[in-house]
């Protein structure tokens, strides 16, 4: 490798959620510095929850992130329900899963089409694409609208859900609405196929780096809510032992904490789920994976977007199956399940679009007294930096702007959600 000096300083990465900077400093071919800096202001959510009635927690924490608001709300509800000994009904579980699929679809479509695809199509955003490839943009908007409408029917709206509440729902979709959604999901299949075709054509940068992949897991289904924590390095942990997996650490250059489990870093998100839970994907999704040339265990982080496309296929099909189940049972106007106790501690976990999310609450007499939230992007930060350290030496021969672009694309592939990762709390429990 030629001795070379290189400095990359990307201020506010674009097409990601929240503010982050990339700093790379190579002197005489030696990597001196390689960091992803989180410059988002801390949001103090855990502190804000203190003293609030437990019913408000999911409404407040959904405001951590506008993109995975349903995910935060669901993890929050699960934490509260476990703390207060509430067992949601089967209908609630089904509706929450369907709602969750809506969010996974919405977020993945946004990321794959509007944030990642422009890189491969040589444009700076989806806006010029509207002129050059209107069919692609309109397809993305169409698919996103259906995902949004799916959320809307169940919880009122995707960004900051309304009807999700502790123990159940405050509103139910009608049978007619579900039937209409099912029809639209079926009609969306050609768009899903076209999405697979599009990403078949985009060739992802060639970069492999093996790491530990962590996701929630259930034997019986491709898991997004509850389950156990599972690793490709082997081992499973109950959700309530999440701390022994995440091992949060404060690092100096970032307002978000880093995590590590068996190695120095691990990855969460669509690729991790794909690697951990491949067997649970439905057949259409598996077929799409073959078509897209991705198989477990895939160690190219750029393939995270491709794994998202596989999940799009899975979620569309599973949504149809879930609606069929709900229709067969018929929607019942259930009152939310009341708490079994008013004090306790609970952990809720979900695999949101960007990876595994944990909410942990301590509740006393119906009021939150302690809270901790561990966000996927926070868990990915150490792994992103490890990838950057691995990537930079392999592309040092390229001009600076190419290096910068490759790094930015790498970070973007993780679909980072920086505003939520800036949560910073020395967890205190009473």
């Amino acid at each position, binding site marked *: 490798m030629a001795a070379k000096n290189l400095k990359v300083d990307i201020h*506010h990465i*674009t*097409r990601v*959620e*929240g503010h982050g900077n990339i700093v790379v400093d190579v002197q005489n071919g030696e990597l001196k510095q390689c960091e992803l800096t989180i410059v988002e*202001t*801390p*949001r*103090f959510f*855990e*502190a*804000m929850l*203190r*003293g*609030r*009635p437990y019913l*408000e927690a999911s*409404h*407040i924490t959904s*405001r*951590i*992130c*506008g*993109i995975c*608001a349903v995910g935060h709300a669901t993890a929050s509800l699960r934490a509260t329900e476990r703390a207060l000994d509430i067992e949601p009904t089967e209908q609630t579980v089904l509706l929450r899963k369907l709602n969750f699929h809506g969010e996974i679809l919405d977020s993945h479509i*946004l990321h794959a089409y*509007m*944030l990642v695809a*422009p890189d491969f199509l040589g444009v*700076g*955003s*989806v*806006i*010029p694409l*509207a002129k050059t490839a209107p069919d692609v*943009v*309109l397809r993305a*908007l*169409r698919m*996103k*609208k259906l995902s*949004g409408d799916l959320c809307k029917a169940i*919880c*009122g*709206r995707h*960004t*900051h859900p*309304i*009807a999700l*509440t502790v123990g159940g*729902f*405050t*509103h139910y979709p009608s049978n007619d609405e579900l039937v209409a959604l099912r029809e639209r999901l079926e009609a969306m299949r050609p768009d899903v196929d076209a999405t697979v075709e599009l990403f078949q054509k985009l060739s992802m940068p060639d970069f492999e780096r093996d790491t530990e992949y962590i996701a929630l897991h259930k034997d019986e289904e491709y898991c997004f809510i509850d389950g156990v924590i599972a690793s490709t390095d082997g081992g499973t942990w109950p959700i309530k032992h999440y701390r022994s997996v995440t091992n949060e650490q404060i690092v100096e250059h970032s*307002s978000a904490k880093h995590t590590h489990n068996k190695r120095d870093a691990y990855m969460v998100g669509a690729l991790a789920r794909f690697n951990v839970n491949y067997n649970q994907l439905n057949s259409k999704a598996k077929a799409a994976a073959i078509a897209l040339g991705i198989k477990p265990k895939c160690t190219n982080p750029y393939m995270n977007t491709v794994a998202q496309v596989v999940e799009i296929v899975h979620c569309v099909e599973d949504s149809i199956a879930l609606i069929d189940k709900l229709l067969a049972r018929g929607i019942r106007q259930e009152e939310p399940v009341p708490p079994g106790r008013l004090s306790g501690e609970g952990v809720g976990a979900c695999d949101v679009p960007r990876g595994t999310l944990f909410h942990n609450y301590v509740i006393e007499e119906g009021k939150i007294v302690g809270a901790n939230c561990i966000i996927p992007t926070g868990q990915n930060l150490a792994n992103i930096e490890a990838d950057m350290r691995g990537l930079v030496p392999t592309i040092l021969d390229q001009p600076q702007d190419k290096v910068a672009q490759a790094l930015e694309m790498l970070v973007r592939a993780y679909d980072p959600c920086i*505003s*939520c990762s800036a949560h*910073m*709390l*020395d967890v*205190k429990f009473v």
Partner: protein
Amino acid sequence: MSPKPTVAFFEFTSCEGCQLTVVDSLQDHPELLDAIDIVQFREAMSEKSDSYQIAFIEGSCTRPSDEAKIRAIREKAAIVVALGACAHLGGINAIRNRSDMQEVREYVYGDKANWFPTYEPRPISAIIKVDAVLPGCPIDRNELVKAVTHLLQGRMPQIPDQPMCIECKLKENVCVYTQGKVCLGPITLAGCDAICPTYGDGCEGCRGTISNPNFQSLREVMLEHGVSEEEIESRLTMFMTNQILAMAKAQ
């Protein structure tokens, strides 16, 4: 037609959900892209120009260093619109203003309490003059499209000074008070089509109040429905913390 107005989006402390709602509104109104020229929108695009006529600012100001950035936007833009509750009211971020700032910092950072130069979250209007507001957490898509239409017509977006109950009744929702829930509808600015009561939950006041809210009478209503003083305070300080604190101070 006159050339398209140039529009830029900025965010400070927020969840970026309002900007996502802007992206979402393209689903029903792709023609938005024909009507305006978006020149800066970090969340969704890499292209960037610093020459713009209309600036939409999302998020609240939570640290002294944001102030200069906000002022710079004001200097460049002819029209500044506050986008969403964080920018309009301080939003959910302002919940922490109920506690002493130093205490919050210590709770969060322990002995490193003074590491981060954050201060009490405040609306954008606390820093600069704001020409118009799109309230809500998140903003309402239809209201956004209407606001853009008004800007194209050369007038300021205006939110009618009407309470939520009006919209709620027009939707023939069953009033959530009759279902044992709390609602700030009678004092909250309408415009979201009473979406929370429509989905079975009481209004949380994310859009701020009408010009003459009758807080006193609403408190009585809540007490009558068995809501404790504590829960009342809690509900009133979900989005309106800054207003409630200002009222308490004035007394």
